[in-house]
């Protein structure tokens, strides 16, 4: 689901890019000589495209991480527990939100149970500029769900809390499915509007 699309160092150049490279090589050769070309060429190809706002930080060469609190199902299934995890650093708020959601949606580490159905992926994440985030998930979040009010609440609030707890500037999250607004995931939780952080579903005193 990564939105990263920039060419890597070994990517075959397109014809347009090849022309650019050729021009760059000629200009560079005129100015600094053939030795400088050998230094500049790999750097130029590895740069991300200019318009790259949707790039997932997890897929960049940036290995920086942040501490984030993610949420998993307690042993008795009655609530969420907080777990501190390392997630990829995002350059922008939307990148960081996506990085956190992708970590939350990914398969749980050994010993933990995710409230989000296996196979669910993050289609996109975007912000409205007024404190709300929109998280578009793949349909597996519905088709793979066990059902029931309780588990639906744990699914929804593990996503909502993961973003709102770690990114204080985001106060509410609306979950979309396959690009569409939905009333609920499996018939109970009201997803018609963005939901705010709710720690009522999280074990106290951790």
């Amino acid at each position, binding site marked *: 689901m990564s939105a990263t699309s920039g060419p890597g160092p070994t990517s075959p150049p397109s014809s347009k890019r090849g022309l650019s490279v050729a021009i760059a090589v000629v200009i560079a050769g005129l100015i600094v000589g053939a030795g400088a070309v050998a230094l500049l060429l790999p750097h130029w190809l590895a740069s991300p495209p200019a318009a790259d706002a949707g790039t997932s930080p997890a897929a960049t060469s940036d290995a920086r991480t942040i501490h984030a609190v993610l949420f998993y*199902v307690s*042993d*008795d*299934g*009655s*609530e969420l527990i907080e777990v501190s995890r390392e997630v990829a650093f995002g350059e922008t708020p939307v990148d960081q939100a996506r990085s956190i959601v992708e970590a939350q949606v990914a398969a749980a580490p050994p010993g933990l*149970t995710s*409230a989000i159905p296996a196979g669910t992926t993050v289609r996109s994440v975007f912000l409205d500029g007024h404190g709300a985030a929109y998280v578009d998930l793949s349909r597996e979040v519905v088709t793979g769900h*066990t*059902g*029931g*009010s*309780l*588990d639906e*609440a744990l699914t929804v609030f593990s996503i909502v809390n993961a973003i709102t707890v770690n990114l204080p500037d985001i106060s509410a999250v609306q979950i979309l499915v396959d690009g*569409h607004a939905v*009333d*609920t995931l*499996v*018939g*109970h*939780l*009201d*997803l*018609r*509007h963005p*939901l*705010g952080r*709710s720690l*009522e579903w999280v074990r106290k005193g951790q």
Partner: protein
Amino acid sequence: MTRAQTPPPSAYTVLGLDTRKLLPIRPFGTADLVPLDQVAAMFGVTTTEDRPTASVTITAKGQRIVLTSGQSLASVGGKLVSLSGPVTHDRTGWFVPVDLLSRILGPALNLHIDVRRPSHLIAVGAASVAVVTTRIDRVASGARITVDTESGVGHHVTHDGTRVLVQFDAPAIDGSATSGSAPEFVANTHVDGATLVIDLGPSAAGVRTTNSSGRVVIDLAPASSAPPPPTPVTPPAQTVAPDLGPPAGVRTVVLDPGHGGADTGVRGPHGSLEKDVVLQIARQVKQAVESRLGIRVLLTREGDDDLPSDKRTAFANNARADVFISLHANASLRASAHGAEVFSLGLDQYKARAAAIGTGDLVPVVGGGTRLIQAVPWELAQIPYISRSANLAATTLRHLSAQNVPLFARASEGAPLVGLAGINMPAILVEMGFLSNPDDERALTGGDLVGSLVEALVDTLGEIRSSGALSPVPGLDPR
């Protein structure tokens, strides 16, 4: 009362077109199928059959609706929409589930189409169908029939010896909501167009009717006694109840069996489906509450219908019920999770929008004076009832516990539930147990737990009826 004496209608009556029209019904399991060629002619849409793929495409205002033979689905602009039954075709033509009209064709044509399956009516556009509810109660002197309808719909009552006819000033009526019975006094009731026909039983010798706006009361007395004295007619909210009838506090309860149709809800480890389990229990609760408390109980769905939450909400609000209880079965990733849980609407997620509702406006009324009118968005209608619903949840929980129904670790919860947010009365959602737990599944599908759940809900309604436990808690509701 026996309703089986009246054969089921063989056609839907379509109201709101140039003339009243009929759509013949072809039953298929629990679904009603109607001929597509007649639907197309009625609504001016075109159909194109594609024999190689056994599909037919409806084109409505440029939108393509693709139906495939044998599938309970329609593709609408690439998006799948489930239907109550399969599309079929034979040498006589194509047949489609009737809910295609309301769920797909109406939105495509930007036309309001309301399909009322119990009463076999389809209202198109501005056509309205008056909802008529009928309750039959035994009273000391015989039986009493109480017929309620929306205020403003006029009516005329006639009596010809063996039948009582209540004729309404409406294009048609939906008279499917009937409760109670006294067969020796009321042999049968059925609707004929805009007339409610009441066939009297052998014991009904004396008939006395009293009318008021929105209500008809028909007292039936046996041959050996004089008809009961006239009953002062008052508006419905203030009407004196019959001998065994409920006090004004709780007269009508709507029970909402969750899920239905393609939406099966939770599937238990032994294959039980939530939609079936909750419907069975809802029927038992209805029978027990009506027979023991005399409270009218309406179910949002009587069969395996896929009913969106806004339809359930509209049903409860239109019925002017006093209490709404949605019945569900829970699920957990942990198979050990078990026990019942009661939800009411949590206010936290609605605070900002609740604050925007404001305190209302003073509006002049006919005859002088003013009245405070507060505009509450329909999807937030539950907000003024938050504390009463919390009271209802607490009372329910207490009676579940008293009946030894196992309770979940988080037995009571406030949550942003779409099925409660628009309900215009105290409302709760009861998760009766975890269908994902093998023991709970067994107990909910024939075990002793069902009886205990029914008793707990009867006791809950009995208590709030007599104690007024649903009175608002000062200061808790946001208005």
